[in-house]
């Protein structure tokens, strides 16, 4: 008996020791990081949560918001950022901004595209149609860099899924149950509203703008793109940087995940079906096993 207890104790000591050893090592690391004065982990501030209409298992896009977001993209972002995976027909598709096909055609025809060659071999330019992608502001990456002080403005087709601030422990566990999948739009909103003067003693390199919400440094090459009343809203929605940021972030989320509504709707049906099916199976299983001790 004593022997057994000694063994249990030995095992416990080993387990606990190992656990503490690991944690102590990690704690030391985190302590070390705090001591350094210049921030080494970005973003300096984590994005705040925005209350999105498309969050959660029953979320849907707010069509008005997507239309406003498209306007912000078109009038502000599109001068530098391409969106090459999104086509004009998407604007009229179900689960999107809810433009009619006619409206989408008009929006497309505002731009031209080089499509093939004419009879004399000259490039043929025609107005864009529903099947065509959004126009890119620059012919190639080098041209984009040359116009932007060496920085390449990323394509926006997937940006809302391609940016996510690390959640860390324990948030990443809770995220499963919420379920939280809006890191992208939260980040976009935080970045667009996060420009501010650098704190004292911090020097920002030439051609860079301080933003503590930027994911990979304390400053970025993009100047604050939005200011109040820069885009005109005709539906009475406040024309503020905060509102613009929310609208364009929602629009970018739709652009990155155009079938989000269909996915959540199908998911609801599938989950209900499976839950009921599982319940029936359980009852059947119990009936079959009733006479067998196990």
């Amino acid at each position, binding site marked *: 008996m004593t022997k057994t207890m000694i063994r249990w104790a030995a095992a416990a000591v080993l387990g606990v020791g*190992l656990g503490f050893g690991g944690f102590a090592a990690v704690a030391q*690391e985190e302590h070390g990081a705090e001591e350094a004065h210049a921030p080494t982990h970005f973003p300096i501030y984590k994005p705040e949560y925005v209350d999105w209409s498309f969050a959660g298992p029953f979320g849907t896009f707010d069509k008005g918001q997507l239309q406003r977001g498209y306007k912000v993209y078109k009038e502000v972002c599109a001068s530098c950022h391409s969106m090459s995976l999104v086509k004009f027909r998407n604007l009229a598709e179900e689960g999107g901004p809810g433009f009619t096909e006619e409206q989408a055609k008009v929006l497309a025809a505002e731009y031209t595209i080089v499509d093939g060659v004419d009879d004399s071999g000259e490039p043929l330019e025609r107005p864009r149609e529903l099947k065509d992608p959004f126009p890119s502001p620059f012919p190639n990456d080098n041209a984009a860099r040359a116009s932007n002080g060496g920085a390449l403005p990323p394509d926006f087709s997937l940006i809302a899924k391609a940016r996510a601030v690390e959640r860390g422990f324990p948030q990443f566990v809770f995220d499963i149950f919420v*379920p939280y999948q809006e890191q992208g739009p939260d980040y976009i909103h935080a970045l667009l509203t996060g420009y501010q003067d650098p704190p004292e003693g911090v020097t920002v390199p030439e051609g860079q703008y301080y933003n503590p919400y930027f994911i990979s440094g304390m400053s970025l090459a993009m100047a604050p793109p939005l200011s109040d009343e820069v885009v005109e809203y005709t539906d009475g929605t406040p024309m503020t940087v905060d509102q613009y940021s929310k609208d364009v972030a929602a629009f970018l989320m739709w652009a990155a995940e155009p079938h989000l509504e269909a996915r959540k709707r199908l*998911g609801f049906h599938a989950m209900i079906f499976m839950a009921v099916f599982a319940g029936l199976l359980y009852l059947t299983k119990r009936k079959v096993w009733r006479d067998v001790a196990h």
Partner: protein
Amino acid sequence: MSGHSTYEPRTGVEKWLERRLPIVRLMHDTAVSYPTPRNLNYFWTFGAILVFMLVVQILTGVVLAMHYAANSAVAFQSVEAIMRDVNWGWLLRYMHANGASMFFIAVFIHMFKAMYYGSYKEPRELLWILGVIILLLMMATAFMGYVLPWGQMSFWGATVITNFFTAIPLVGEPIQTLLIGGFAVDNATLNRFFSLHYLLPFMIFGVVILHIWALHVSGQNNPLGIDTKSEKDTVPFTPYATLKDVFALVVFCLFFGWFLFFQPNYLGHPDNYIQANPLVTPAHIVPEWYFLPFYAILRAITFDIGPINSKLGGVIAMFGSIAILVFLPWLDTSKVRSARFRPLFKIFFWVFAITCVMLGWLGSRPAEGGYVLAAQLFTAYYFAHFLIVLPLLGFLETPKPLPTSITDAVLAKNGGHAHPVGAAASPEKH
């Protein structure tokens, strides 16, 4: 255990087949009359769940391959075309990507179950080893599959992992060149990875058949870890195990569906929505979550060991962490299978499980400062568990007395009644 067949061909078709290819008999013996211990718990349903996941991956994968283009110039766009323009393409692609994670969740539970209940012990050594081979094939398949979308993590993951082969002396560099089809990860890499990604699942399927065959020869282990002694200890696979498996499978699908429908990108990395760019290195290159414990072991070796430099040491440790599983049946010296009767092993099992989880977490951290030290500690313990703890426990531990038979143990639990005293009298079972 497999005993002789109880199958009787009845219909004309069955009789015709019986004389030529007794495939109905095989199916009957495998999935209907196969005797299964009556005391199995829900951890024994993961075998069926894994077969289901393999089928899901193959079916979704075959359809995805109809729309995917394995060319580095268009691969990324072709995946996006699947997501945007192919009918139900988003569903197929998210099912396949999240399905890989579900596959690994199920396989890890399946393996820890085998470890807890000593399912790898005599006479199931080969069954276990076949399982380890399946795990290795799964890892290779998943790794190559992750490269196909040609995102930033695809590209850099492939670069980092294939680079480790160069650590092997003499043959390392030629192996790496052969593996990636050139001197850097490029179109040739993508093409051969796609080919192998399509091939390996069918190899897994083959080994799974061997795995099930071996299982049906030795019979299933059970939570008590004692052999079945008479027919009383077992129930026929159908309807008993079939129904239990299907119920568990649907519950597992609910779990799968939660990720698939409501957070399909939770288990992925945002950088993989950026097209591969050989000129831009991501800040932290991390593999998929199911590789993280092995990745932590790989990076834990930061020191040279004699003639073995740290890089080679890391590669040896990583492959060793899987290879050591092959020897598990002989490293565990205890004759008692189930942890229920091994008080000391039970504690060490959980310490080991926590070690694996911690290694997983450390694999996601940057390899710097205290994280490295922690990873080294846990890596040391990972190997110590197999090389020191398990061999010693067999000699040091006094196991609890084993029940004489499964039926006796079940009857004792039910208060001496062969049948539970009415359904209401046994609510504690579920």
